[in-house]
């Protein structure tokens, strides 16, 4: 990598002879600055990913846990089995539903913040960000406290007579869904806010003056201009939500496992590294495809807005 980085196509023309060597040394010295970052990435990010890829084509003796390397695709075809397919489908469905929920909840909030004036706007933004800054595990545990079978929400609903008997949310996929939406909502609100704030208020006034109803203004003016924000928010919510590992552990009990949990089980409990590696690679591939699709849409949307 370092070699490639040194061959700068745009490097300025070398000065005449005496300075030439010193210049070359200086350029090489400059490039050394990339080394710590590139080195760490190669050693502790790219190499592990490459190892996963190699492992995913190997096979394991489940008695001795000895891994044999080879070119078998069985680890990948195995993912198609219901046992593994179910958590994958569940992860994708949950991620899609949570992203949609974040969008529906986040849009009015982002709109309100974008239309608020100076100080109020700063306070509201801070209000959205503070929960996001507090410890992730603890926040998720706080949801556990709140949605527990005899927790405060239940008590309120019960004393108001809205709910009779028990409702179980904790340790179901709805509990996990609530956790995911709660955790990632700020990541949807922020980019939505950025794109909504950029909208010139005179555009909305013009739409109103020309007789458009609020609903029509929303649909024909605000929404199209918010598309880049919607896509950015979707990337920030959907990608990590699909790979979510901690929230189902706390809020899902042992019943609502997601893809990330099944992958780690292959490593921790079963010891089938090749199968786990194949799942991890498949997860990464799916996410990369989603990411690239969203990125290309986002470039188009940016171009359309500009």
């Amino acid at each position, binding site marked *: 990598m370092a070699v490639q980085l040194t061959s700068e196509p745009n490097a300025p023309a070398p000065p005449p002879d005496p300075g030439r060597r010193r210049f070359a040394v200086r350029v090489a010295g400059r490039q050394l600055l990339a080394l710590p*970052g590139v080195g760490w990435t190669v050693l502790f990010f790219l190499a592990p990913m490459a*190892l996963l890829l190699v492992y995913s084509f190997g096979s394991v003796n489940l008695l001795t846990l000895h891994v044999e390397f080879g070119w078998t695709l069985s680890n990948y075809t195995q993912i198609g089995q219901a046992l593994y397919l179910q958590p994958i489908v569940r992860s994708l469905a949950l991620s899609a539903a949570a992203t949609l929920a974040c969008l529906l909840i986040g849009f009015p909030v982002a709109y309100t913040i974008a239309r608020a004036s100076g100080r109020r706007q700063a306070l509201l933004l*801070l209000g959205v960000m503070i*929960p996001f800054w507090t410890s992730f595990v603890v926040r998720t545990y706080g949801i556990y406290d*709140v949605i527990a079978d005899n927790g405060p929400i239940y008590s309120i609903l019960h004393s108001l007579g809205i709910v009779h008997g028990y409702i179980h949310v904790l340790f179901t996929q709805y509990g996990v869904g609530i956790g995911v939406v709660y955790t990632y909502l700020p990541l949807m609100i922020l980019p939505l806010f950025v794109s909504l704030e950029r909208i010139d208020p005179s555009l909305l006034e013009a739409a109103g003056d020309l007789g458009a109803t609020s609903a029509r203004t929303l649909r024909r003016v605000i929404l199209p201009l918010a598309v880049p924000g919607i896509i950015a928010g979707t990337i920030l919510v959907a990608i990590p939500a699909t790979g979510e590992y*901690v929230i189902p552990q706390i809020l899902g009990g042992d019943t609502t496992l997601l893809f990330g949990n099944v*992958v780690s089980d292959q490593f921790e409990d079963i010891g089938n*590294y090749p199968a786990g590696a194949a799942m991890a690679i498949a997860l990464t591939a799916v*996410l990369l495809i989603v990411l690239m699709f969203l990125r290309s849409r986002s470039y188009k949307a940016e171009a359309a807005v500009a």
Partner: protein
Amino acid sequence: MKLRLPRPTSVFTGIVMICLYLPIIAVVVYSLDKSADLIGWTGFTTHWYSVAFHDPEVRRDLLTSLEVASASTVISLTIAVCAGLWTRGASPRARRIFDGLTYSRIVLPEIVFALGLLILFSKLHIGYGVWAIVAGHVVFNSAYATIIIQARLASLSSTLEEAAADLGANRWRVFRRITFPLLVPAVLVAALLAISFSFDDVIVSQFLGGTSAEPISVLLLGMIRLHVTPEVNAIGTALMLITLVSFSTAGLITVLRPTGAGHLLALGRRAAE
């Protein structure tokens, strides 16, 4: 400016805000509640804090977290400052590749590269522990730090540095006397973020700690999964304070002095994870 602002959206925003704080308030309230079951308010006590404080496991894991956080922060910042300086003279093509590497460290699910590192360390017979966790934390912490430092450097004009060079300062002196002092606020913000992410991380910490090192976040997750006691709420409140204080300080520095953190804010995070 004033539009026909549909009032319902303001009301809705208020409700969402309350919901955002409900779990946090619940943890704090339960940590101060006398009763050991989460059945409602039975009286004020700081008993659970002293239980947590005197728990040898909690103390040991807190120290482990501190070690991991400080080591990964120092390494991440070194990487980020070098990367930032390199970026200024890099060709657009090299820069694109470099940035791709930076962003992919943030975007790809942590669980994937954590498992890759698990295999790597067992293959190399390095074993797990504090340094294995540090290696993993630096992967994402250095990425966030790099983005912040790059953004700050991009907003700096090079006139001061050129002037210093013209007056005969060598490159190291220019860096030490001009560039670095201008970078200090951004470095501080990046450090505070790195410390928070390190303290907060579960996945890398859990997989790479092995039997010898357990950070506080992993202990907490284990306690939550096995037996729920008010002690958990007390540790949780303390942990929230640590992350909240460092994030707010970072925010304050950003407001007072220009750093690249605004750029990161627009990018968002998982972060968290």
